[in-house]
C-alpha cells in the first residue's frame, strides 16, 4: 500500500538531491538543472496530495509551477548567455560582480 508518506519521502529525497546540486556544483547550467529537480519534487507532492484527496486543484497548481519553471528557465538561461558573452565563463565562483 503506497501512502502519501511514501510520496513525501520520494519528493524530499529529490528535493535534497537538488539542494546538494545547487550547493556543491560550480557549473551554473547544472545549478539551474538542480533547481528544475527541486520544482519537480514540489510537483510530485502536489500531485500526490491531489490524488489522496481526489481534488484536482493540486494539479492546477502543479501547472502553475510548471509555467513558473519555464519562465525561470528562459530568463535564467538568457542571463547565462549574456554573462558568458562578457566573461567567457559559466563558473559561479567567477560570477561576483555584485558581491560587495
Amino acid at each position, binding site marked *: *500500500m*503506497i*501512502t*502519501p508518506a*511514501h510520496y513525501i519521502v*520520494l519528493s*524530499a529525497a*529529490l*528535493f535534497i*538531491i*537538488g*539542494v*546538494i546540486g545547487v*550547493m*556543491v*556544483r*560550480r*557549473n*551554473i*547550467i*547544472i545549478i*539551474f*538543472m*538542480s533547481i*528544475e*529537480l527541486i520544482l*519537480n519534487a514540489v*510537483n*510530485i507532492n502536489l*500531485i*500526490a496530495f491531489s*490524488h*489522496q484527496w*481526489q481534488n*484536482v*486543484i493540486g*494539479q*492546477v497548481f*502543479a*501547472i*502553475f509551477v*510548471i*509555467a513558473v*519553471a*519555464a*519562465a*525561470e*528557465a*528562459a*530568463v535564467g*538561461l*538568457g*542571463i*547565462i*548567455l*549574456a554573462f558568458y558573452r562578457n566573461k567567457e565563463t*559559466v*563558473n559561479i*565562483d*567567477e560570477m561576483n560582480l555584485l558581491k560587495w
Partner: protein
Amino acid sequence: MAEAIAFYALSVLILGFAILVVSTRNTVHSVLFLVLNFLCVAALYVTLGAEFLAVIQVLVYAGGIVVLYLFVVMLVNLKRPPETHQDPRRQTLTGFVLAGLVLGELVAIAVYSALPPTPTGGVASVQGGNVERVGYALYVDYLIPFEVASMLLLVAMIGAIVLAKKEL
C-alpha cells in the same frame, strides 16, 4: 501490489537519474539524464491519475525546457570546463552541511505532520476525465491566476529576448 511495484521502480529511476544529473562531469550527459528523470516523473504522474499533467510534463519539460538547456550548453562552448577552476575559499563541506540541515528540517516537518494513512478511493470513479476536470478548475475557478501566469510567461519571453540580444 502493482501500484507498489510501479512506485518503487519509478522512485529508484527518478532518484538515480537525479543523482546522475547532479554528479555527471559532462554537462550534455547531465541534460540527457534530466530528460530521463522528467520522463520517469511523468510516468509517476500517470500512476497517480494525473494524465494531463504527465502530458504537460513531457511536452513542456522534456520537450521545451530541456531543448533550451541543450541549446545553451551548445552555445556556451566550454574551452575550459568550469570545474577545473578551484576557488580556495570555496566551502563544499559547508554546502553539504547546509543540504543536510534542509534534510533534517524536511524530516522534522514530515514527522510532525504525519497523518494516519487514509485509504484512497478508486481514481476512475470521479465524474469526467482528468483533462476535463483540470480544464474546468483552470478556466472557471482559477481563471485570474491562469491569466496572470500567461502574463508571467509573456514577460519572461520578452526578458529572455532582451537579455540574449547582441548588445545589452
